[in-house]
């Protein structure tokens, strides 16, 4: 539908609730509507003629400019969620849409960007999250219910807690739940990734330093232990903690005191430790890479978090949760996933666990404009014909071996339920039994 001629465009743009600005080919702002003034807090007189990045100040401005991408790829960007920084230092979540502007000859003469304040939507999102039990932990599988049953008692105790689980199983989420359910909930929760920082920096990060501890330490700097006083410190990837720091952490766990770098006096501390790792700590102890005494000190209460394949029945409710969350954040109206997508997700092995599921849906949200998420919106490796998909990768070997794999795979997918497996394969119980008994060794 074409736009009616002779309409006062400026009046139209001024009346819309979304912020709107246009730029020329040198990225100078040429139009800035009233809503843009209201959302950014910058007057039109100050904005006009200035570079768009100086006015908009978004997380995309340096290197990932939305209008720039539109011009380069000749596409439109719709409903991309980002943040801008206002002059008072607050971060404002906004959803942007961008498009190139061309003249009658088809030459690019600039671009247009609209943006919507997502603050209210984010507040709603928090309310939605608050409805869930134990912060953001979603699910009702037996494996999860087992943890939910002991979580309040574990949280109420002051004991050091060790969370074991593969990557993406939500270790930090559980650590936060322990903190929020404990009497320390009003205190700080400080997370440290022990594997992300170099050894020297990690020591000063954890324990802080005193002025003069090293050449450039002009003032005292509190460590994250001090920042967590009265609360909980979450030590992620504890298995990667350098041996030299293991000694210092051990002393802290035994005596609840530590010395900042360059300090001469011990500091008493009241901090609960929740540690987590995806490593086999016992093996690391056996290999001499983790101190046995520290292992025992950490291993007071241990919780093993289930993988997503161990709680497959949670996949639908997790999908609903992530779709709802993404809708709230991105201001979209995705209905959910189609049945065939759900079946595919139920069959997938998820080596990256819940994080992988979340990433898959995040990817799908980019490609899916509205309605149901379809298979073509999923990452390619999940497509039925894609490499690495369980449905087709087993087509090798003799017919007997292929049948065996098909039977075993379908049985696993149906959680060991033989009747469901027979229905899916359209075979009798006797045939299934025969197929399984004829499986070659190792299959």
């Amino acid at each position, binding site marked *: 539908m074409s736009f009616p001629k002779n309409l006062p465009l400026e009046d139209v743009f001024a009346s819309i609730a979304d912020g709107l600005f246009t730029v020329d080919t040198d990225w100078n702002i040429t139009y800035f509507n009233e809503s843009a003034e209201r959302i950014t807090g910058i*007057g039109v007189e100050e904005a006009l003629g200035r570079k768009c990045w100086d006015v908009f100040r978004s997380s995309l401005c340096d290197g990932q400019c939305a209008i720039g991408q539109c011009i380069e790829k000749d596409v439109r960007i719709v409903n991309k969620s980002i943040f801008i920084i206002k002059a008072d230092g*607050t971060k404002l979540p906004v959803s942007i849409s961008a498009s190139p502007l061309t003249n009658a000859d088809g030459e690019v003469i600039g671009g247009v960007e609209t943006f919507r304040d997502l603050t209210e939507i984010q507040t709603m999102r928090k309310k939605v999250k608050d409805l869930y039990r134990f912060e953001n932990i979603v699910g009702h599988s037996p494996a999860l219910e087992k943890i939910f049953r002991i979580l309040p008692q574990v949280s109420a105790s002051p004991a050091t807690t060790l969370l074991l689980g593969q990557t993406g199983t939500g270790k930090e989420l559980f650590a936060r739940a322990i903190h929020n359910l404990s009497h320390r909930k009003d205190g700080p929760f400080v997370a440290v990734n022990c594997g992300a920082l170099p050894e020297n920096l990690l020591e000063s990060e954890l324990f802080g330093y005193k002025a003069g501890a090293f050449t450039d330490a002009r003032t005292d700097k509190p460590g994250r232990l001090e920042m967590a006083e009265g609360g909980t410190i979450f030590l992620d990837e504890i298995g990667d903690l350098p041996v030299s720091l293991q000694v210092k952490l051990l002393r802290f766990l035994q005596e609840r005191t530590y010395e900042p770098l360059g300090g001469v006096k011990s500091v008493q501390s009241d901090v609960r430790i929740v540690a987590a790792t995806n490593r086999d700590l016992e093996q690391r102890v056996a290999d001499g890479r983790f101190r046995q005494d520290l292992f025992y000190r950490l291993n007071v209460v241990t919780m093993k978090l289930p993988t997503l394949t161990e709680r497959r029945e949670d996949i639908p409710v997790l999908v609903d949760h992530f779709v709802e969350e993404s809708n709230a954040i991105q201001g979209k109206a995705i209905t959910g996933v189609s049945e065939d997508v759900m079946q595919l997700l139920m069959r997938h092995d998820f080596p990256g666990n819940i994080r992988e599921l979340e990433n898959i849906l995040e990817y799908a949200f980019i490609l899916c404009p509205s309605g149901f998420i379809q298979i073509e919106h999923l990452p390619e490796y999940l497509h039925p014909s894609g490499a690495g998909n369980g449905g087709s990768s087993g087509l090798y070997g003799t017919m007997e071996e292929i049948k065996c794999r098909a039977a075993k795979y379908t049985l696993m997918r149906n959680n060991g339920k033989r009747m469901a497996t027979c229905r899916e394969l359209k075979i009798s119980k006797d045939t299934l039994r025969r197929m399984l008994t004829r499986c070659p060794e190792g299959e």
Partner: protein
Amino acid sequence: MRTHSTGLLCLACYKDRLATVCENADEYRLFEIRDGNIYPAGHLSLPSKDPMDRTSAILACGVSFLLCGALCTEFRARLESGGVTVTPWLTGTLHQALDAFQNDTFSSLAMPGCAGQLSS
């Protein structure tokens, strides 16, 4: 002219200009202030975008002054509590920023809507 005769100056950069958002800078360039003059002193190239990691790295190398673009309140508070004098809401090339630092003329580089935030 600035009265500071020594110290380490850090500029949050994107290519040859100040980065729009300090936390998103792809490089932090360092300059040594010695006897009232400014000398290049290397750069910090940080893969992590976590503001806490970035603050720690800036503090660990002993930065005294930071010049940058937009900066959120939490990031600024962490830097200032570590003893860094922060001058945010600036725009312009590195040359312009260094010039403004030496001559105390930050107001000419103020981002739109931020002139009142600069206390030069």
